[in-house]
């Protein structure tokens, strides 16, 4: 019996990884691009992609945590812009750089807190509460700035923090920040009671309530993590752009959700991982990078991203069907 099931188990374990479809697509894309464009598979381009993917990755990490609890955060793009704006303004008003950067992150976490409170205390649906925040935060940024970008906050250290100046080659500070964020989120999800509760809450909200999981706290913290990640992304982007335009982060919520889903997070909750977010962000960033290098019309980017999203979800459905079938087969063999 063992001889029969071992290879199929290995195969199904491979399929069981919710990021399997995305990884497969990623490999195909990288191989195809490397063959067609010799400059694609190079250290320089790897540096480009890693630096470009930081924003989507950070947002996707936060989004993954929220998705795991069964929620969704539509406000991340706006939160990113508003927190970056407030942080930059703090620096232009004469505050030290550290205060500005901490302010940016704190504003992000605070807006996440408001999201969480609206959802848990006021009982608003996640979708509605964060959609409202998307509008309010973006509108506030526009009203406050009158559409005029904020400039004049670029202290010399900020160039290093945002990765514009690269004293250590392509391993920039944003990449290090992203690595730390990935590790922290991975550890929190895997090894803490918060992580277990979050998965439990997302898989079965009813059971979670009955078994005494502090639902409100888990949710509020998830939105705060998402807000904080948006704040960190905003902090880095403010440096990378050297100006905070009121459009900063516009539309990034879509990329964040797409990256999280491509990486195996489920809209229905209970599933997702930090590793998946990395894969998802990588897929989106490499797609954008490949389209620029290949000189293909940028409209393809939306088509390809949509297609990848669809394929990832379809692949996941098919593989779970196969897994279910092989499990049935294994059970039947065991009984035989």
């Amino acid at each position, binding site marked *: 019996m063992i001889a029969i099931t071992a290879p199929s188990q290995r195969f199904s374990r491979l399929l069981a990884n919710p990021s399997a479809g995305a990884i497969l697509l990623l490999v195909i894309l990288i191989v195809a691009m490397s063959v067609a464009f010799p400059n694609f598979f190079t250290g320089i381009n790897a540096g480009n992609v890693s*630096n470009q993917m930081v924003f989507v990755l950070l947002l996707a990490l936060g989004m993954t945590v929220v998705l795991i609890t069964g929620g969704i955060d539509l406000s991340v793009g706006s939160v990113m812009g508003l927190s970056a704006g407030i942080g930059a303004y703090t620096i232009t008003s004469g505050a030290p750089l550290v205060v500005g950067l901490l302010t940016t992150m704190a504003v992000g976490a605070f807006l996440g807190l408001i999201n969480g409170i609206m959802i848990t205390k006021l009982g608003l649906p996640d979708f509605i509460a964060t959609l409202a925040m998307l509008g309010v935060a973006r509108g506030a940024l526009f009203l406050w700035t009158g559409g005029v970008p904020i400039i004049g906050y670029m202290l010399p250290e900020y160039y290093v923090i945002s990765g514009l100046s690269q004293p250590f080659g392509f391993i920039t500070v944003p990449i290090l920040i992203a690595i730390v964020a990935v590790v922290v989120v991975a550890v929190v999800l895997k090894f803490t009671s918060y992580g277990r509760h979050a998965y439990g809450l997302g898989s079965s909200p009813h059971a979670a309530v009955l078994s005494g999981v502090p639902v409100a706290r888990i949710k509020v913290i998830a939105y705060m993590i998402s807000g904080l990640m948006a704040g960190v992304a905003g902090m880095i982007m403010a440096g990378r*752009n050297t100006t905070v*335009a009121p459009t900063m982060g516009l539309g990034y919520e879509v990329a964040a959700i797409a990256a999280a889903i491509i990486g195996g997070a489920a809209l229905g909750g209970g599933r997702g991982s930090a590793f998946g977010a990395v894969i998802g962000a990588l897929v989106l960033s490499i797609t954008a990078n490949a389209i620029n290098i290949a000189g293909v019309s940028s409209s393809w980017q939306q088509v390809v991203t949509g297609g990848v999203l669809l394929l990832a979800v379809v692949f996941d459905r098919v593989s779970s069907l196969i897994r279910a079938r092989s499990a049935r087969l294994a059970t039947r063999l065991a009984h035989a």
Partner: protein
Amino acid sequence: MSDTKIISEVKKNGVSRRSLLTSMGLGAGVIATTGLLSACSTVAPTGSAAATGGAAAAGSIGGSVYDAEIKKLVAGRELQVGWTPPILSEFFNQMENAAFGRMAELEAAYGVKWKWERSSPTGNFDAVEQQISTVRGWTTRKFDAVLVCTGANFATMQDVYTEAADSGTSVFQFNQPVEIYEPDQISTVSNIGYDNRSQSGYLAGKFIADTLGGKGKVIQIMGPSGSDWTKARLIGFAKAMAENPGMEVVGSADGGYVREKGLNAAQDLLTRFRDVNAIYGENEDMALGALQAVEAAGLKLWDGTDGIVIIGADGLISGMDSIVAGKLTATIDVGSVDQGRTFIDTIFHNVVLGESVGKFIEVPTRVVTKTNVAAAQAYINNALKPAKTY
């Protein structure tokens, strides 16, 4: 200016404007702008009023006899004007302040009163439905004049404009690439802007070719594919490239008119084409993003003899700061100030005085480089301090 915060600048203006008004009276603020106006001879599309301003007394535009006559015609009329740019940005902020400056001048000289309403989609170039309903709302409220710049579908807008005209609201477009459409199909009273082909795209291409001695490799960072601005500017740019057989456009990518995407696009293209001589950023934010990509890649910026030439288009204070700092090689100043002043003049002449105006009014545009950036920047900075805001 590089260390100045635009935000606080704007806020300071609010204070200084108020103090100007209260302490010196309305006319005082006008002197400076009127003088500049005649010096630059850029405004006054319909001739008469503005061009003779230089020697007149404070607040006067056409001399005392003319002013008195016009004042009688105006008879203290209040004009309700709606202004809807496609987005709020540094560019449109410059334009709006320039418009305020001209409104204040006309108010001081002729007693015309303005009620100004601004509405803009917050942040999305595609949020055109909002603009359509805004214009319809203003039409219903019987606004005297409506100023539109939009990314909305051409045909849809013409219907909206016709509806407005039928109910007595005069529609004007500004900064709209009308040149790529049939003049007869455009249903506005007048269109104040510039020809994106010859006055922006072509100038950028020619500047690159001239600077590089007619030979070199160029990458283009374009606006959203399908946008009318992009289409029009590319026609002009391609023409300049065609006139210089030594020039070769090796790659192009979409920078979505925003800095982050411009930076990424330039970074990716520089990976494939390390040996480019010039980057054409179709607007200034993308050009500034491309500049960051060049710097991050450790490549050399143009220093007058050697390096990568980067040119943008818009004419923003922030872009000009970069030119002053010796980073951005050049930009095309597409007349944010003159467009703002001119569309106010056009409304005044047409709606208030009942005069005819041209259907297509093109303001001057210019290539701004290190040699002429001081004047260009001073002109905009001056416009950013209107005597009154509305």
